């Protein structure tokens, strides 16, 4: 803050300004989608060890009841998103491409779908340890897309000291607006969630960073601060990838996460607004995470909007509900800059699914444009938020000098944000090259 505010909203260097496409969804209230007739619930919706199965085929479950428990510390439980019967437990397609073990839940059409299983706690009485446990019990993960278990993120190792909680309300990916709507509609839950996170980590200060294109949210959240001076809400420049942890910390605090490090190394812990708002809602009543807000949008959708969708809902069902227009389409889970594209309509909405984006022909056509040689325009260098040299990395990748890429040109600092590919006039799939190079380096190291 401080001197950064003298120059307008805080920001980081480089990055790109893709058209936001948020208007179609940002102004409508969050709506609820009906339950489908079946859910596909993968056991590995989070990063870490897949959850341990607690139920058997044929078993009846009620909404909210744990279906699987955390398998160790870096793991979270999974709760039944609906009342119904376990139809099967088998390998199913997942958003990450490979098949994953999943529970197929037949949803009872006649059930009221109230949450019937709870394990309430008194948040005020919890010490940090107890708070971490309570957070793990909700099955909470980073809802911004990372799906990293929240309780792990909020556990501060003894040798580290943390002073600030950064609350990420940037939502810098084009098209997405679920965090924006959450801030507008659930400011109280968000504030509560921020308190829980502060309680768990013992930090004395929290900063909510929101991109300047959401000033209504900034204003509203500030009103909800009342006299709490240990929480502040700051606007940051609207620019992709403002919502990446490293960039947001730089923008808000001027601190730089060292290469290969994490925010903890510089005394910061980052959580997404959607995650903390969900935590604020679920933790005091002792409910698990069974549904989430998903932005369903894109030119291929008739009724774009933000929908509360039960976890495990197949995207084919979602599309039917929102009026899928049809045609030559591409389906993306998350935002268009980093979200994976999926083709199987049985792919479920999971904890990390922030968006379901349907792009149609003109957008796809752009993707299949001719690839030209690198013309050394330097745009990628001026876009890369990590200040890498994607042009040279791309040339090395073409020569298969993967080791050189990592050793001399810091390939491993690339977090695949896509800015370089986005600006490249030669349409070189730089990110794809870098992904392959990293995979090969990993394999050789193993």
């Amino acid at each position, binding site marked *: 803050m401080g001197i950064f505010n003298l120059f307008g909203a805080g920001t980081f260097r480089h990055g790109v300004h893709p058209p936001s496409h948020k208007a179609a969804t940002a102004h409508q209230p969050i709506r609820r989608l009906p339950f489908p007739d079946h859910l596909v619930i993968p056991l590995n919706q989070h990063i870490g060890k897949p959850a341990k199965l607690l139920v058997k085929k044929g078993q009846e479950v009620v909404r909210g009841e744990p279906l699987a428990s955390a398998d160790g510390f870096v793991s979270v439980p999974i709760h039944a998103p609906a009342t119904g019967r376990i139809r099967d437990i088998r390998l199913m397609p997942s958003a990450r491409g490979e098949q994953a073990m999943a529970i197929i839940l037949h949803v009872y059409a006649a059930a009221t779908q109230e949450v019937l299983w709870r394990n309430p706690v008194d948040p005020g009485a919890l010490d940090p340890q107890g708070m971490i446990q309570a957070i793990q019990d909700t099955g909470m993960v980073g809802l911004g897309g990372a799906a990293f278990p929240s309780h792990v993120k909020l556990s501060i190792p003894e040798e580290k000291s943390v002073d600030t909680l950064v609350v990420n309300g940037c939502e810098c990916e084009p098209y997405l607006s679920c965090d924006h709507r959450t801030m507008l509609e659930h400011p109280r839950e968000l504030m509560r969630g921020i308190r829980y996170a502060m309680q768990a980590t013992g930090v004395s200060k929290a900063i909510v960073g929101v991109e300047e294109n959401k000033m209504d949210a900034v204003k509203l959240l500030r009103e909800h601060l009342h006299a709490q001076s240990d929480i502040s809400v700051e606007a940051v420049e609207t620019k992709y990838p403002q919502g990446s942890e490293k960039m947001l910390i730089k923008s808000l605090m001027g601190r730089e996460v060292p290469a290969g490090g994490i925010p903890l190394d510089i005394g910061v812990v980052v959580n997404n607004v959607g995650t903390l708002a969900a935590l604020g809602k679920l933790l005091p009543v002792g409910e698990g995470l069974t549904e989430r807000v998903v932005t369903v949008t894109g030119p291929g959708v008739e009724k774009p909007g933000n929908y509360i969708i039960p976890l495990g809902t197949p995207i084919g069902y979602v599309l039917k509900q929102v009026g899928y227009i049809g045609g030559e389409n591409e389906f993306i889970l998350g935002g268009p800059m980093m979200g994976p594209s999926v083709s199987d309509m049985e792919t479920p909405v999971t904890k990390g699914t922030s968006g379901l984006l349907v792009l149609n022909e003109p957008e796809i056509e752009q993707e299949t444009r001719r690839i030209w040689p*690198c013309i050394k325009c*330097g745009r990628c260098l001026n876009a890369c938020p990590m200040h890498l040299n994607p042009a040279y990395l791309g040339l090395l990748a073409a020569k298969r000098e993967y080791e050189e890429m990592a050793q001399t040109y810091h390939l491993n600092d690339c977090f695949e944000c896509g800015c370089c590919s986005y600006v490249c006039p030669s349409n070189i799939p730089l990110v794809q090259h870098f992904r392959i190079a990293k995979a090969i380096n990993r394999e050789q190291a193993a």
Partner: protein
Amino acid sequence: MAKKPAIELRTTPHIHAPQDVIMIMRNVVYASLPMAAWAVWQYGLSALMLLLVVVASCMLSERVLNAKQGNTLGDWSAAITGILLFLTLPPGFPLWMGVIAGFSAIGLGKALFGGLGMNVFNPALVGRAFVQAAFPVAITSWTPAFFDGRFTTLIPSTLTAPFMIPPETGEWNMQVAVDAFTGATPLGLQKFDAVSTPVLDLLTGMTAGSAGESAALIILVCGLYLAFRGMLDWRIPVAVMAGTAITAAVFHFIDPVAYPDAMFMLFSGGLMLGAWFMASDMVGSPVTPAGVIIYGLLIGFVTVIIRLFGGLTEGVMYAILLGNAVTPLIDQVTQPRVFGHRKSS
């Protein structure tokens, strides 16, 4: 709902900025057309024929020599090379030499390195340097602008038969010139006769020289168009101009009589064209943010040094070629500091 084959997985990001190579190149063509048109207006039919011949030669050479890459005419880069090359030639340059200039620009300047994106030097300047060495007389035979009947008659040297020495144009110059025409460019006048041309004349193109050497104003406007559309890195021409102005100012300060001032240096010769359209050529210039500044300043500095102390009147061309040559080195030493690292690698 149509199920898509599972193998058809697309990679991130799924959206792209609208500008691609073709769009950029096409706009460079648009931006260079006013300059070419101005040259034709100044010199008439001869200039028009030379323009067409040089562009055709470049495009044909591209099609034949870069056939490996497929049909690359669509990227417009050969056409750009042709137009820029034309702008560096004297308007009465024999057409057959124009063919050679175009061929050497693409052949030596581009195809030899592997085509678009691979070339080290600006192809138009390679072509120009080649014919400068091959035809030193023809390349410095200037003819007066705005001569009467320029749209109906040709400059005598234009139609020289292939492999023939072009006729002397000195006498013809005297006949057609509106004012006393010495056949010397402003830089030549300055260097050999210590006559300074008013900056206003330089700006508006009321001087002798190659098409691209005159009319600094048009070049500036065309360059600014590209800069505003984000299709040209404005830092390069600005750095070239800064390097030129600073170096010239220092010398002018030391000895105002012997050395011309910065304004003259900026607006005479091919400096404007070189700065805005050749030094800024993406392929031959550095990619790092600091590198482009160093590169531009270097070109400006070398240009002035050659102009003041070299045997040639014009130094921009060699300065840019030198800049192209050291670009890989500049890139190497100006790698930006990577986020989260202490110092640059």
